[in-house]
């Protein structure tokens, strides 16, 4: 019996170990090693920190790095502000069927691929697109308006892509908030804002933090949306990684960028948890 249990345990553990080992740990060790070497000539490499030095001194790289970080934080904040009322409505105000239907409506856009969804925005926002034509027809613009290829369009795309990942954890935590606790807040003299600040938000904090972490990581690592909706000035850090690996075949610098992104997201997530006084265990468990 004992040996059977042990075989079962090993069998259950194998996929996890394979997944972690082959797809996460080994590639990352390899990436780290690649990023820590310099190409001397064809097939000859030397260990060095030259890649990191280059990445941290070249203004374009550094600027893109910080821009990506700030824009991702901004996208996360905007997503939270839009998703919170939506989640509150779904969790607390809607009843029965309406609740299910609304939840489904949040989910349905994710039935199609991100590429198709992003094309949808392009159809709306481009020069010959729906909104441009509508503005001209209404007389608000006298020539075609281009709304694509700038930071605003990219932000719209990022927020839209991340929405569901914020709404789901928020709905889950808000649903567990007892209605009578909110009523007690009003009964004891609280107004809408103080009930929101002192009761609803503290209760929803685990959902807010986990939603923010997921959305932040998705935005930071997004490739498609910034490439398709962003302009020449809205270079995203993932695009630079892609360029180094695929276009320039400069694996050393690409791996360095990859590592910088990993460190950045870890630091910001850690900072977010510190700021809200939560542990990763509480948030994910």
């Amino acid at each position: 019996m004992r040996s059977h249990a042990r075989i079962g345990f090993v069998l259950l553990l194998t996929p996890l170990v394979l997944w972690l080992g082959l797809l996460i740990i080994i590639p990352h060790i390899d990436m780290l090693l690649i990023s820590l070497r310099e190409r001397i000539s064809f097939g000859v490499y030397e260990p060095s920190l030259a890649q990191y030095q280059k990445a941290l001194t070249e203004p374009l790289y550094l600027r893109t790095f910080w821009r990506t970080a700030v824009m991702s934080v901004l996208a996360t904040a905007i997503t939270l502000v839009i998703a919170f009322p939506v989640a509150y409505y779904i969790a607390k105000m809607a009843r029965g069927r309406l609740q299910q239907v609304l939840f489904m409506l949040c989910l349905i856009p994710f039935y199609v691929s991100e590429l198709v969804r992003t094309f949808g925005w392009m159809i709306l926002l481009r020069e010959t697109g729906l909104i441009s034509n509508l503005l001209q027809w209404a007389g608000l613009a006298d020539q075609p308006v281009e709304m694509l290829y700038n930071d605003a369009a990219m932000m719209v795309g990022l927020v839209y892509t991340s929405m569901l990942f914020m709404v789901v954890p928020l709905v889950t935590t808000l649903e567990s908030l007892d209605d009578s606790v909110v009523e007690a807040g009003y009964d004891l003299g609280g107004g809408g804002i103080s009930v929101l600040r002192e009761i609803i938000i503290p209760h929803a904090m685990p959902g807010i933090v986990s939603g923010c972490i997921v959305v932040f990581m998705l935005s930071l690592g997004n490739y498609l949306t910034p490439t398709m909706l962003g302009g020449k000035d809205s270079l995203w850090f993932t695009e630079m990684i892609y360029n180094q690996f695929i276009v320039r075949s400069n694996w050393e610098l690409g791996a360095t960028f990859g590592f910088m992104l990993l460190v950045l997201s870890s630091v910001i997530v850690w900072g977010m948890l510190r700021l809200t006084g939560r542990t990763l265990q509480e948030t994910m468990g």
Partner: protein
Amino acid sequence: MTPDLECVDLVKRFGATTAVDNVSFCVPPGSFFSILGPSGCGKTTIMRMIAGFLEPTSGDIRIKGGTVLDTPPNKRPVNMVFQHLALFPMMTIADNIGYGLRRKGMARDQIARKVDEALERIGLPGIGARKVDELSGGQKQRVAIARCMVLEPDVLLLDEPLGALDLKLREHMKIELKALQAEFDTTFVYITHDQSEALVMSDQIAVMNAGRFEQVGTGQDLYYRPQTPFVAGFIGEANRWKGRIERVEGAMLEMRTETGLAMRATGSGTLSKGDAAEIFVRPESIHLAASDAALSDFDNRLQGKVTSILFNGAASRVLVEDDAGETLEVTLPQTGEFASMERGATVHIGWRAAQAICFGGGD
């Protein structure tokens, strides 16, 4: 004296159903008023209308003489202790109690003093820094009351707050709630489906059924002088017989039951010969005896067989099947006289007409 709380012709409809049907009552200052009824009778709806979470379809709610219909819940001089207490789990006990005072914009040191005072009053000094989930059920109960009482409301509403406690603690909290009410000297309006809670604590009880008040009175009124069949059946236990009136002599009636027994009872209301009627007799009003002779001064006497003994300490009962085949519940006195009673024994039972109450209808 102006009543603390007055409801006038209160009606609440949800679509086609009438949850509260023309209810009027007054609660004098400083009294403990209970609304007692089975679940779904509309008592919670009344409470939520008083608190301001529901708007009445028609009628008026007055607190200290002034209408509060246009006052939102956060401005009404009433506070509510919720069924599951609804303490704020994200705050400490002191922050919970101070919540309402902070909303009033009171100075920080003043709040701290008031919170300490309130904790002192409920007998839990020094627990202010603790979290809600570190308290026991009874302590939470007291904190929930203190959280409302620091605001000095005109009326405190309590929505079945003892429901979640275990039996022993519930018995204890009944006495404690009554003591807290005297301590704070505030009007309490208490809703419950548990008659013993209502009977033990209240100055006045309203028995509610299907959206209406059946009877309002003291516990004794409801128990000894029920005015409707519902109250007679709901407060305490009762054996009941249906039948037709055969004779009327002033307040005394004689009814022939469906199984052919003649019974004497006291009538309430206007019954005359031939009317359909129903008689209620409490198990504790029925005397048990070994012989018929011992029961000679009782108006109603029966002979029967013990079919079952329901032993429950002081509240023990026996089930007696009479000759007509009907089963009666009779309280078994714990005086030692019937200690050797066994199933199948023949017993004689009797009760006075004054303790048998007869209502019309009953079909």
